[in-house]
């Protein structure tokens, strides 16, 4: 069995920062190579009150963050984060992160939405990329074991003892994971498990998130009956590329970009006159949507312009080269001469797995799950409350990633590997995957399990699949949305019919425990005139799922008595 002191699920910023800090046998499990993590797409920067361009303090950073959160953020956590920030930036710089520099050689800082001072340290407009690659270097240097392209299927959480309030004390003992390359499923035991699985933006169509942002960590804790917190707060970022959703960094506005409506007005003066384009993200997004709803989108359509033309080519190429590149490649727009069509896009999840300030996952309001931790976007510490300020997310990842690493070290020093009681767990997961891989549609199911030679086992399996398909059918999605000659719609209706009566075919076959004519049961090879020389009528009550009614009708026999059938 594989065994590590500390397992970190997710190889993005939070995960790798924790891995650098962690001691003993440490492993990262990630469904993509760590360098492919979505942290690399973070563009704008990382906030810290190092005061390189203007006198600054952590108190001001804290106030801006709390105000930006609409006062839902937990202020003890915010205080910890902003106090740690400057030191963490210097640590990262010592590790080798290439920050952009001021004229006197210090780390440069720029302005961002919702901040009272230019506080955001950056590496051109590829800050996340710069951080991620440098942290990966540290992982290589340290020799952390990376299970790259492994997908975690299940957390192993079992009760051990009783909490003070009488509830069961849950303990995390490891994970079960699928090696994507080979298809093997392994149980990996651990003293401590850190969830650093990132975002879930993929539940929206217009999103700045990558393919992998499917909230797997959130699903893992839900499967164990653990709660999620503040999930209603989803940040919709104001500036996504129109129709594509890719993010145009907030740095564009930080460097002085304008938001323009159809009338050529900088409409933000109506919504946030003092901050203009640098209002926090929620306010700016609402402003854009209001303009679009009022018919002032460009050409009456559902987008507005983000205009950088007045910045000049030199500034754009020096400070925002990636925006220039992206607009050219994805939209054929030269931002030096053309404005960028933008629309709000789903960007960040403030909510997530509830954790304490020490990154320990909570099983309810009071009690922790021993050995289970969370950090980064998947966690809800909550430093962002109801709205996150730009450049605070990278900060959260590195500060709380580091903290989680240290807390786990302490925990591991005083604990042993816990025995996994349920020996069936691994087999169950393997069975689930097998079933998924062997699952068929209706036609294949009927052909495999309800064909010429039938038996009880096959038919029961077929019935199970048909029931599953019936459930899936209620959520079926139709591509063609038109009202004229919609064959897509008709096909879906037809499929409904197929699913309905196919169930009855299988039920009838199960019911007739003999072989007669076209109906052959391997488990009942003989004809049984005594019991089954009759017709059966089967109906199913819609309201009660399992209420199957079987009626009988006699066979009308007049001239010919039943005899052995021989040719």
């Amino acid at each position: 069995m594989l065994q590590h002191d500390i397992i970190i699920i997710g190889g993005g910023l939070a995960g790798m920062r924790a891995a650098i800090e962690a001691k003993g046998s440490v492993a990262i499990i990630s469904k993509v190579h760590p360098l492919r993590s979505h942290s690399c797409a973070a563009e704008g920067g990382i906030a810290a009150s190092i005061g390189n361009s203007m006198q600054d303090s952590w108190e001001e950073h804290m106030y801006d963050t709390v105000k930006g959160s609409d006062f839902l953020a937990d202020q003890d956590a915010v205080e910890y984060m902003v106090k740690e920030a400057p030191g963490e930036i210097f640590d990262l710089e010592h590790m080798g992160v290439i920050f952009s520099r001021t004229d006197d050689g210090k780390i440069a800082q720029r302005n961002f939405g919702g901040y009272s001072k230019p506080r955001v340290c950056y590496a051109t407009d590829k800050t996340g990329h710069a951080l991620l690659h440098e942290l990966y270097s540290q992982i290589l240097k340290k020799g952390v074991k990376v299970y790259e392209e492994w997908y975690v299927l299940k957390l192993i959480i079992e009760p051990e003892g009783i909490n003070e309030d009488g509830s069961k004390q849950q303990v995390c003992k490891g994970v079960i994971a699928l090696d994507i390359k080979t298809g093997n499923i392994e149980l990996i035991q651990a003293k401590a498990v850190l969830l650093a699985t990132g975002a879930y933006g993929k539940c929206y169509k217009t999103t700045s998130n990558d393919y992998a942002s499917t909230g797997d960590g959130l699903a893992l804790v839900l499967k164990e009956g653990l709660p999620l917190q503040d999930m209603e707060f989803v940040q919709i970022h104001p500036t996504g590329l129109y129709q594509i959703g890719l993010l145009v960094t907030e740095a564009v506005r930080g460097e002085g970009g304008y938001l323009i409506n159809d009338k050529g007005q900088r409409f933000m003066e109506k919504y946030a006159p003092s901050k203009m384009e640098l209002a926090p993200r929620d306010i700016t997004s609402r402003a854009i949507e209001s303009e679009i709803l009022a018919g002032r989108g460009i050409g009456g359509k559902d987008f507005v312009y983000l205009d950088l033309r007045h910045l000049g080519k030199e500034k754009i190429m020096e400070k925002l080269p990636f925006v220039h590149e992206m607009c050219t490649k994805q939209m054929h727009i030269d931002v030096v001469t053309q404005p960028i069509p933008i629309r709000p896009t789903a960007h960040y999840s403030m909510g997530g797995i509830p954790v304490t300030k020490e990154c320990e996952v909570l099983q309810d309001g009071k009690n922790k799950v021993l050995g289970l931790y969370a950090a980064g976007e998947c966690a809800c510490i909550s430093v962002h409350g109801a709205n996150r300020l730009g450049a605070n997310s990278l900060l959260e990842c590195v500060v709380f990633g580091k903290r989680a690493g240290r807390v786990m070290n302490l925990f591991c020093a005083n604990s042993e590997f816990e025995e996994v009681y349920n020996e069936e767990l691994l087999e169950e997961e393997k069975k689930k995957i097998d079933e998924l891989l062997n699952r068929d549609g209706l036609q294949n199911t009927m052909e495999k399990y309800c064909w010429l030679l039938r038996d009880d086992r096959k038919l029961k399996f077929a019935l199970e699949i048909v029931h599953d398909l019936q459930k899936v059918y209620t959520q079926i999605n139709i591509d063609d949305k038109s009202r004229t000659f919609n064959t897509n719609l008709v096909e879906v209706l037809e499929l409904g019919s197929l699913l309905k009566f196919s169930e009855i075919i299988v039920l009838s076959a199960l019911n007739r425990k003999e072989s007669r004519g076209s109906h052959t049961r391997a488990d009942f090879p003989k004809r049984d005139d005594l019991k089954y020389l009759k017709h059966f009528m089967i109906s199913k009550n819609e309201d009660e799922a399992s209420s199957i009614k079987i009626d009988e009708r006699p066979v009308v026999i007049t001239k010919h008595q039943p005899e052995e059938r021989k040719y």
Partner: protein
Amino acid sequence: MKDKKQEEHKKEKHKANPKYIFSKPGAKDAKTKRIKFKIQRFDAAKDKKEDAVRYDTFELEVKEGTTLLDCLDLIKWRHDGSLTYRRNCKNSICGSCSMKVNKRTKLACETQVHKITETFCSDEILIEPMGNMVPVKDLVVDMGNFWGALHAVKPWIIHDGNFPEKEFTMKKEEAKKLDAVASCIMCGACYSDCNTLDVEKRFLGPAALAHALRYVDDPRDTRKKERLRSLNKPGNHGVWDCTHCFACIQVCPMKVAPMEQILKIRKYAQQSGIIYTSGARHHKAFSDGVKHAGWINEVTLPIKSVGLNIVGFFQLAPVGMRMYFKGKMPDIWHKPIVGAEEIKKIYLELEKKEMSNKLDIKEPELFEHRNPNKE
């Protein structure tokens, strides 16, 4: 008046409107084209090697502005769910989706399908997995050697541990030097198309060597000379294995220009006295010949390249003998060509320029005396 305004507005709109209309069926100004995607499929589970590889062709009606990744997704979601490839950010920053498109490695997410068909004057596009790496399934390859090479150049800052209280100060020019390599996304395109790797699997490859330069150039690193020495050591298959074919520069999606970085490492090494490698000697002999007579000195070039190496010298001897007996021996006297003086002047001018670009290594010469445990 109103009409005119509307007209102007339409024009303006048209100018700024994105050509990206993939998700908008029914947009009128979209050019569409029927394009065939011939995709290499690979299934390692097949017993016979020749059965493992096959080509599947899918045909799609593709709108202008659609990327190759969009098309692959459509094929996967609508035609064949078993088509396997890597992808993630959709924004050419994660480096997942590199594959060979008409024999050149590209990122699928930034490859405009219409443009490819125009460039190659063909509506069929050939998609294959990256080269120089072992295929795993369809377009997915095992990048183990690629990561291994990266690891081999120690891509992390090595510092004695006396960190300043705050950040290191770094001049803007110093930081700018790091920009090119810093934008590398480790997509593997250069490795895939590297011609040296085709014949020498132990070559570290363009990406890893470019990263090596980044740490030589980084003012925070204190093991520059050690790095240079290791990268120049013939057995390490470092910078002298490169054949300057420019392929890596051509395919790099982030303009890292790995070959240029490799040449810089060679130059730095020579400048700091690491000249006892056959590559460096060859380089110098070649250049000296041209400097003095306007053309290479064919007699001394092989001898100088081999250097004080008895075995190497004896390996050269039979070739020399055969040349002598066949009357192919070049003139012992290296006769200057017309205009050799002018060439010399160019050299002197360039050398002056070089001196001002010299890498400033402050670390002590005897780095071996340091405690290696500190690394």
